[in-house]
Each structure stands twice: as structure tokens, then as C-alpha cells.
């Protein structure tokens, strides 16, 4: 592999290897309860509670614009009452989890990378190690657990507010018959759509925390290093979310077909 050293492929593979090792270390630490529950609760507050306004606004306006766009296209073929069904399925299985994860990646992924990066350049990570504390136990695991708990909860909020907002726009503004709209929505959206959305959001929560922590812990020295780590945390976690979304959709939809859900 020496021929790859110094190239972007080599650096990319090295980064992938390191983040895999960090994930293994974090999962092993989480399973052996080497973390503090208090730290997890604080991170749930920071990642979950503090992200609500961003996620709610994003969910509401995504549901509203999706309802309007779907209505204008469906109206041409007299399928107005199917509008909310499309919005509901989209919000539950795709837009809810993906947009929530992207918003949380922007807010929380950047904050995690900046905080850990600053701790690294000011020797606070070394101080932790000298105090016989593993940085993975103290810094990574609480964020990983909190993120995998908080992102699904935020996703559910986003799904609900998106569907409610689309109902308000469709029924209140565009004049769709409420009874048919509601009935079609319940008929075409199933438990499987919600389950797919929730499974995706758990994975995205893990990606946001791991990429943010990895970028912070491995950032180069100086203010420029922290700035670069913060930017890369957002960019890489967003790209990873979008790429993994395709594969998760393919796998989960096939599983639904196989198990008849």
C-alpha cells in the first residue's frame, strides 16, 4: 500500500480505517458502561432539546412546500386527494430522517468537532489522558449514545410537524377535501415507512457523532486546524448521510418486500 501514501486515496483510506477503529473502541466502551450517565443526559439536552427549533422549522416548511408542489402536479390529473399520502410517505421514510440529520449535522456535528478540536489544541485531551481517563469513554461515547437517541426523536418530531403543516396547507390553503385526504394518507402510509425512517435516523445519529468526534480528535494544531475540522465534520457527515441513505433505502425496502411489511 506504500504507493498510496501521500495521495488523497491513501489519506481517505487512512481516515476510514481510523474512524472504524474509533467506532469499534466507542461501541466496546458503550457496551461495558465505561461512560457517565450524567454526561449522556447533558449531551441529549444539547443535541436533542437545543436542536428542536431548527428541526421543527425545517420539517414544517418541507412538509408545506412538498404539499404545495405535489398538489400542483396532481391537480393536473385530478388526484388532489392523494397529495397528503405522498407527503406522509416522503416525510416518514425519506425527508424526515434525511433533512433532520442534515440539520443536526450542521449544528451539532460542527459543535462537536469545534469543541473537541479546541480541547486537542489546548492539550485538554492530553490532560484527560494524564488523569487516567480514556478520551473515548469521556468524550466520544456520551455523544454517540446521545446522538443515536436524540436524532430519531427529532426525526419523529419532524415527521409529525411536516405532515401537520402539509395538512394545513393542503386542506386550509389549497382546498383539498379533508376526509379523502386523511383517508388516503392513512391508506398509503404504513408502519414500515415510519420504521424505515427511524432505522435510518439511528444510523445518521451515529454518523454525525462519530464523524464530529473523529474530526475534532484528529484536528491539526492551531485555529486553522480547528476551523478545517469543523468544516470537514459537516461536509463529511452530510455526504455520508446522503450516500448511506441510498443504500439504506435499497436494503430496507427490499427487507420490507421480503417480510411482506
Amino acid at each position, binding site marked *: 500500500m506504500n504507493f498510496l501514501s501521500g495521495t488523497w486515496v491513501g489519506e481517505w483510506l487512512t481516515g476510514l480505517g481510523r474512524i472504524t477503529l474509533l467506532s469499534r473502541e466507542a461501541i466496546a466502551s458503550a457496551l461495558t458502561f465505561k461512560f457517565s450517565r450524567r454526561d449522556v443526559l447533558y449531551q441529549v439536552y444539547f443535541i436533542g432539546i437545543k436542536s428542536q427549533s431548527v428541526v421543527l422549522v425545517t420539517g414544517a416548511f418541507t412538509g408545506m412546500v412538498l404539499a404545495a408542489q405535489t398538489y400542483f402536479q396532481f391537480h393536473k390529473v385530478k388526484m388532489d386527494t392523494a397529495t397528503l399520502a405522498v407527503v406522509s410517505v416522503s416525510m416518514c421514510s425519506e425527508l424526515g430522517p434525511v433533512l433532520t440529520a442534515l440539520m443536526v449535522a450542521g449544528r451539532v456535528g460542527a459543535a462537536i468537532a469545534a469543541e473537541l478540536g479546541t*480541547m486537542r489544541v*489546548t*492539550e*485538554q485531551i*492530553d*490532560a484527560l*489522558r*494524564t*488523569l*487516567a*481517563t*480514556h478520551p473515548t469513554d*469521556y468524550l466520544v461515547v456520551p455523544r454517540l449514545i446521545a446522538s443515536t437517541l436524540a436524532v430519531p426523536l427529532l426525526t419523529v418530531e419532524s415527521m409529525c410537524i411536516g405532515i401537520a403543516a402539509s395538512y394545513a396547507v393542503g386542506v386550509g390553503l389549497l382546498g383539498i377535501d379533508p376526509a379523502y385526504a386523511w383517508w388516503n394518507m392513512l391508506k398509503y402510509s404504513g408502519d414500515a415507512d415510519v420504521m424505515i425512517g427511524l432505522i435510518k435516523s439511528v444510523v445518521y445519529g451515529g454518523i454525525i457523532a462519530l464523524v464530529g468526534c473523529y474530526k475534532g480528535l484528529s484536528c491539526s494544531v492551531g485555529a486553522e486546524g480547528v476551523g478545517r475540522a469543523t468544516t470537514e465534520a459537516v461536509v463529511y457527515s452530510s455526504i455520508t448521510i446522503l450516500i448511506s441513505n441510498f443504500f439504506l433505502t435499497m436494503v430496507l425496502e427490499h427487507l420490507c418486500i421480503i417480510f411482506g411489511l
Partner: protein
Amino acid sequence: MIEVRGLKKSFGSQPVLEDVSFRIENGESVAIIGRSGGGKSVLLKHIIGLLQPDSGTVLIDGENIVAMNERQLLRVRRKFGMVFQGAALFDSMTVAENVAFGLRRHEHLTEAEVAKRVAAALDMVDLPGTENKNPAELSGGMRKRVGLARAIIYEPQIVLYDEPTTGLDPIVSDSIDKLIIRVRDHLKVTSIVVTHDMRSARRVGNHVLMLHERKIHANCTPEALFASTDPVVRQFVDGVADP
């Protein structure tokens, strides 16, 4: 007992330490001196396992820490306390939370016991009543004292000081030196002080290691160092720039 044998370290193509060997007995107080950028802090970080050498061994009470992984090192690091050059206080915590960090992580004490130990540690470093301050509110000297309180609260066997007086005025530097001596004498710890302040090295060390050109150039008592006629030692002791 700390023993370093044949330690080598490079960063990329830049060698920093070459064949460094020495031994420090329990209870000794050693000053590591040398020019800025000469590898003193790098050597200190090898002693506590924060850096891995390219080759060589570091024995702490007979255990080779170079062969240990990060989790195994945690057990050995409980023997150490370290004071960083910039104090490295956790800026999201108060002084009390910083000082209590090691206790809360590793000892099962009640909050009252923790508070008592924190107050005692802060008393030891002459900072009583600062428990609720934030690190940002403290001066450089106070931050180093809090760093020392954090390092000694769980009564380690070895305390490492990375340039404890750098950036401080002579009066504060003097008080930090006195504090290092007080901690050494009260807690009977092994002290390793990295410094380029000769006055400080003379006061706190009963042994001096001088790093020069990546190697241990002198390993002697402070008196022998100050009396040395070796031109390299003389130049450093007298503080004379290259002609």
C-alpha cells in the same frame, strides 16, 4: 522508579530524541533542562505514555509502558500527576470541577468528601475560596496552581511539570518553585520538572538532566552543573547566545 533506555523519537524526517537513557529513583526531584525546541516536553510526554517512541523503552516501576495500549496505560497513569505548560484546565468546568475531576472518575466518594479534598488541594496551592471561579477568570500563575491542585488531589507517586514557570513574572515564578518544593516534601513524590529557567532548575531539582543535540549531555547535581567547565553547559548556564 523511572528508567528510560535508548529512547528515539522523530517527527517525520525531524529527529527529536536519539538514544536517550537515564534513571530516576523514587522520591528524587529532577530538573530537565535544555534549549527551547530541544525535545524536553517530548521526553516528558514519553514518560507518561502520551507519545510513543520510535524505539527504546520506558520502565515505570519495572513495567515497560511502551508495549502497553491506551487502556493498559490508564492504570499506570494513576501513579502520575502532570502540570501542563498552559495548565490545560477544562474550560467548560469551574475550578472545583477541574480539581475534582480525577477523584470523581476514579474514587467513590460522597460530594462532601470530594468538596473537602478539593478545598484541601486548593489550600495546598494557596488558592483557597476559588472553587466557583471559571478558568477564564484566573491569571496565568493561578491557572498553573489549579493545574497542580488537579494533579496532586489523588496523591500520585510521580508529578511531572512541563515548564511550570514559563510566561510568569519572577515573583510568581518564585512562588511556583516554592510550591513544587512544598508538594515534593509534603507528599514525598518523585518530581520531574522541565524548564529552561536555570534558577528554577537549581532550586527544585536535586538532580539535573541536560538535553543537547537530541541526547542527554549532562546528568549531575545542580551544584556540579553550575561548576561545570563544559562549554555547552557553560553557554546554557550563563545564557550566552552563539557568536
